[in-house]
C-alpha cells in the first residue's frame, strides 16, 4: 500500500529519497515514542529524565521538517516543488490560524487552549488534505 502510494505520488529521485527518509523518521518516532511512554510511566520521577524523555520524541519530527526543507532544495521538478510548497502553505496557514485562536482564547477567555499535539495535528491534517486535493486534481485533469 505504502509502495503504491509512494509510486503514485511522484517518481522523481528527490521525492523518492524524501519519502524513504520520512518513513525511516516515522519508524524512529514510533520506537522513541513507545520508549518515552514506558520510561515516563515506569522511571520518570527524576526531573532531568522527565525533560529528556519529553524532548526526545520531538527529534524525529524535527528531522522530518528539516528533511522537507532539503527535499524542496533538491527537487528539480518545478511543478512538483510548487505543489509541495502550496501544500505546506495550506498546512502553515491552518497552523497559524489555530495558533492565533488559541492565543486569544488563553489571553481573553483565560481558557486552557488546545491540548498537547493538537496544533501539529492541525498542520499535518491540513497539509495532507491539500496534497490529497492536488493528487485528485492531477488525476481528474489527466487525459492519459
Amino acid at each position, binding site marked *: 500500500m505504502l509502495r503504491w502510494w509512494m509510486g503514485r505520488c*511522484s517518481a522523481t529521485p528527490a521525492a523518492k529519497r524524501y519519502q524513504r527518509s520520512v518513513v525511516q523518521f516515522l519508524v524512529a518516532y514510533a520506537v522513541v515514542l513507545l520508549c518515552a511512554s514506558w520510561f515516563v510511566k515506569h522511571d520518570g520521577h527524576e526531573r532531568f529524565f522527565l525533560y529528556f524523555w519529553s524532548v526526545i520524541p520531538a527529534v524525529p519530527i524535527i528531522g522530518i521538517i528539516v528533511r522537507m526543507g532539503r527535499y524542496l532544495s533538491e527537487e528539480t*521538478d*518545478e511543478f*512538483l516543488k*510548487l505543489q509541495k510548497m502550496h501544500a505546506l502553505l495550506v498546512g502553515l496557514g491552518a497552523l497559524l490560524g489555530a495558533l492565533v485562536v488559541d492565543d486569544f482564547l488563553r489571553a481573553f477567555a483565560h481558557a486552557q487552549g488546545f491540548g498537547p499535539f493538537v496544533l501539529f495535528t492541525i498542520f499535518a491534517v491540513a497539509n495532507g488534505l491539500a496534497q490529497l486535493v492536488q493528487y485528485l486534481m492531477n488525476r481528474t485533469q489527466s487525459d492519459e
Partner: protein
Amino acid sequence: MNNRLKDLRAERGWSQAFLAEKLEVSRQSVNAIETGRYDPSLPLAFKIAKLFGMPIEAIFREE
C-alpha cells in the same frame, strides 16, 4: 497562457510519459502544462521549444 503542447505531442505520437522523460520532468508537470494549470519557467519553456525545434512563441501564446 495558452500552449500547443498537447497538439505538438499528439502530432508526434508521443505519450505524456515519453515527453516528460525527454524534458526530465514528471508526467504530472507535462499534464499540468498541457491543461493550462501551470505555466512553465523560462528554462523549461526553452527546453520544450528546443525539443520541438520551434521558437517559444510558436508554442506558448498569451491568452
